[in-house]
């Protein structure tokens, strides 16, 4: 069982890398700052909701792009929502793909849209895995009796 300080160091290193590699941005920091005693599970709750909604959005996008006649307005509407929710929680790379995705929707470019769908799915899965790893680290620290370091 790793010592608390070792886990905390791991946590700081991991979090820093997530910011440096652009997986997370300031919005995520803000989320963490919003968490307090009255709502100690806030970040996990919001992120879990994001995961749920994102999976539905990805399915809807796949379905919409498989139609014989693609309704680009509908596709754009889904991407717009994905862009909004991902930017709210700081999932920067997902948001960035959504920006490009919207451009392809405007151009009614099916190939571009399909490529973006793959890309956004990929980025989503990456950030989901990384956040889950981060939460696991937090749990380990708490179980070892330590406190989560505050990132600035």
């Amino acid at each position, binding site marked *: 069982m790793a010592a608390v300080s070792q886990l905390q160091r791991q946590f700081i290193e991991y979090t820093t890398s997530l910011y440096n590699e652009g997986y997370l941005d300031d919005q995520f920091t803000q989320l963490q700052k*919003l968490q307090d005693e009255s709502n100690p599970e806030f970040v996990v709750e919001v992120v879990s909701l994001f995961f749920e909604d994102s999976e539905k959005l990805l399915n809807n996008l796949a379905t919409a792009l498989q139609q014989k006649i693609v309704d680009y307005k509908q596709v754009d509407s889904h991407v717009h*929502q994905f862009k909004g929710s991902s930017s*709210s929680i700081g999932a920067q790379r997902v948001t960035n793909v959504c920006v490009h995705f919207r451009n392809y929707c405007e151009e009614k470019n099916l190939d571009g849209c399909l490529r973006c769908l793959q890309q956004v799915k990929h980025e989503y899965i990456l950030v989901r895995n990384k956040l889950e790893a981060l939460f696991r680290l937090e749990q380990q620290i708490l179980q070892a009796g330590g406190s989560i370091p505050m990132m600035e």
Partner: protein
Amino acid sequence: MCKKLVQMMQGKIWMSTNSQGYIQSTSLVLRFQIQQTFNRPMFDLTNFIDQPKSNSIFRGLQVILADDDGVNRMVTKKLLEKLGCQVTTVSSGFECLSSLGPTMSPFHVVILDLHMPEMDGFEVATRIRKFRSRNRPLIIALTASAEEQVWERCLQVGMNGVIRKPVLLRGLEIELRTVLQRAGERLSS
């Protein structure tokens, strides 16, 4: 006769005399029902305006937040609560309008996502301004757009402010404070 009237009002009336038997004072006790204030007039907002730079300015501010995205709703609500606001959330323009109702408006501020399906923020604001002639809640738009035309259109439909998404605490605080202060200036002019 006084006694009869007071008794009909379910009150009490009595005279007290001093030691020499002269009437010294009359006491009257009447019971009244406290009226519910349904319509909060605009001047209620003055409570929120002339405060020094602290977040007590927002304490008790009743806000209704309309955004169709669950994640955004959760985050924006928490930000508003952090500032001291009391927040009610709805997920559509329709829900927003029914919560405001034609006669009752317990909300001081309406925060509207511009891009909602079925009824967008512009339409909601237009309808609010049409119905709510006596009580005018302050309306603030939420949008990811930085376009001048979008912001101008917000003002045209009678909105009081715009906040860019993704929402940051500081940006929210500044715009809310500005909108409240401008409202206060209008009142005192």
